[in-house]
């Protein structure tokens, strides 16, 4: 799950990283009040789970409380890459002398964590990585020993940081890595990390993503979930053991297995359709799971046909067919359903499905084509 800037900043602060403070405002009035409390220029920043908010007009400098109110008014309600802004962070403006980038994430190829830093702070780091890769300094982290002080120093010297400022960034790099590990993050990032005019280090932004598989170790994060930002349906699905991702098309997909679910979406597209979702029902494809999947898929008003794709493995195809038929009776589905059932006892399963009035086939391509036809016909 992704954290908002102000949430990540609070975590950074608990691990000793000096951040810029500030408070969250949901209305222009609140923004004005906070700015008044700051008593000086502030920055008003959209709190959304996406990058590029600066370019999209989601960050504004305000010199007076009145300006802060106007800035908040302009930003609240803004649509940034499909995310509507419902809150802003109002924080004191900093006296920036130099901007850096500092981040920790997993290097999947090396199966090790990596600390990355750049003197090109404050800009889109992925753009820097693509266009000026030599401007990014990296240190692979020992899986057992963590980030060594010497590695952090090496990064600092490579960035050309003056000797008397090296100790400061070494400390922050180690604190950031510590935060990343302690909070089971998959990403922890400060962009920009700034050196102020008075020579102090300050984290001006904070970004963190948490490993969903590790949330059992961090029950406190449940309270930080942003139901406006994350798709509530996806969260409900996860609680039922179903992986669900909403997409823009009109063919609802219900599949067992993540890889097969992706291949099913691809097949829909190949046959001229657009998938309405990614959906992996998980292991058994029981009546309960299929019923829940029907609920998830049919909640989307754009769905005009449903494609069920099950490869009967350990679970027999006839049992799966019974489950589908049963779920079909429990949940009202008004759009056409096409079922592809293959694997163990597939013929028997298809017979049962046909009896239940469902179109059934053993070929994934055929099923995808049929679903696309059905959607277009609807």
């Amino acid at each position, binding site marked *: 799950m992704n954290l908002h800037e102000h949430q990540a900043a609070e975590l950074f602060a608990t691990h000793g990283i000096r951040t810029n403070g500030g408070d969250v405002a949901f209305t222009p009035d609140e923004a004005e009040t906070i700015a008044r409390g700051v008593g000086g220029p502030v920055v008003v920043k959209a709190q959304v789970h996406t990058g590029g908010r600066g370019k999209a007009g989601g960050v504004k400098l305000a010199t007076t409380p009145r300006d802060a109110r106007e800035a908040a008014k302009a930003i609240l309600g803004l649509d940034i890459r499909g995310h509507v802004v419902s809150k802003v962070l109002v924080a004191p403006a900093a006296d920036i002398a130099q901007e850096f980038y500092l981040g920790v994430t997993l290097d999947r*190829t090396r199966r090790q964590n990596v600390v990355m830093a750049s003197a090109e702070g404050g800009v889109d780091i992925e753009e820097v990585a693509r266009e000026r890769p030599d401007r990014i300094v990296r240190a692979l982290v020992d899986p057992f020993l963590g980030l060594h002080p010497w590695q952090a120093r090496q990064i600092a010297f490579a960035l050309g940081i003056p000797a008397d400022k090296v100790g400061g960034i070494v400390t922050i790099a180690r604190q950031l890595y510590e935060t990343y590990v302690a909070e*089971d993050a998959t990403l922890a990032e400060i962009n920009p990390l700034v050196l102020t005019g008075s020579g102090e280090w300050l984290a001006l932004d904070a970004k963190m993503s948490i*490993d969903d*598989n590790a949330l059992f170790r961090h029950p406190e994060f449940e309270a930080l979930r942003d139901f406006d930002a994350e798709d509530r349906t996806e969260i409900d699905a996860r609680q039922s053991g179903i992986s669900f*991702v909403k997409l823009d098309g009109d063919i609802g997909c219900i599949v067992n297995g993540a890889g097969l679910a992706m291949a099913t979406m*691809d097949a829909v597209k190949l046959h001229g359709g657009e998938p309405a979702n990614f959906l992996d029902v998980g292991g058994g494809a029981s009546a309960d799971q299929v019923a829940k999947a029907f609920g998830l898929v049919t909640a989307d008003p754009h769905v005009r046909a449903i494609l069920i794709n099950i490869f009967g*493995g350990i679970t027999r195809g006839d049992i799966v067919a019974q489950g589908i038929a049963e779920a079909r009776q429990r949940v009202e589905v008004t759009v056409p359903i096409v079922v592809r059932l293959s*694997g163990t006892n597939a013929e028997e399963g298809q017979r049962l499905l046909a009896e239940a009035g469902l179109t059934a086939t053993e070929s994934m391509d055929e099923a995808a084509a049929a679903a696309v036809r059905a959607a277009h016909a609807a």
Partner: protein
Amino acid sequence: MSILVDRESRVLVQGITGREGSFHTEQMAEYGTNVVSGVTPGGKGKRVAGAPVFDTVADAVAETAPNVAIIFVPARFAPDAIYEAVDNGLPFVVCITEGIPVADMVPVYAHVRNAGSRLLGPNCPGLITPGEAKVGIMPGFIHTPGPVGVVSRSGTLTYEVVDALSRAGIGQSSAVGIGGDPVIGTSFIDVLGLFEADPATEAIVMIGEIGGADEEQAALFIQEHVTKPVVGFIAGQTAPPGKRMGHAGAIISGGSGTAAEKMAALDAAGVRVVDRPSAVPAAIQAALS
């Protein structure tokens, strides 16, 4: 011939008395796999599918000399089970468990490598050498012995492809599911190297998906080290960036890890890339003839 497991493999099941563990132990034994023992703390004296259960891996090793371990314990305890297997000398460990935090797998990966053992998974279906041994959760009956090595990040998608191959009369030397997590013990490259060296394998099917750069790495490896024909398929051509597609590893991030990039890399390496699973058998037939 085959890779990694065969009829001589002596399999230890960790978490053997659990629901998943006991079910799949029965299934594996039924397939003909030589399951020699299992471990469940406090389970000493029980039997599952005829295999004796021990309290510790050390006891199981002393009494039954296994050389492959397969793990069915819950995510919170799976890393400990991997360490127990490796530290007790198991050279090959298959971890089926899904949902292990990445932070736990990073040191596990390093430790297994330092110990000189091999880990397959986690979050994988395991592997099978048709007609000899099944060390995993795949449906055995869809597999047939033959000349094609299959390696995949996915579960049911692999069954889909294997089933298509078998129906087309093309058997498999071994089929290996490497798993869909960001940190896995055995990568495409490792398995490709094994298939290249295996005399029984004449062609290879590689099934990738979005996320990470393992397919790109594999493409480089194929170009330099693989002489046998390779057919490739990448799932997730329609997946949007920033969304995790079920597997923790299947996520397009920072504009990289897309299916298009992976297909291009494989294509450039001489792999016959197909756009749908059903096209795999024909591509293999063309490659083999």
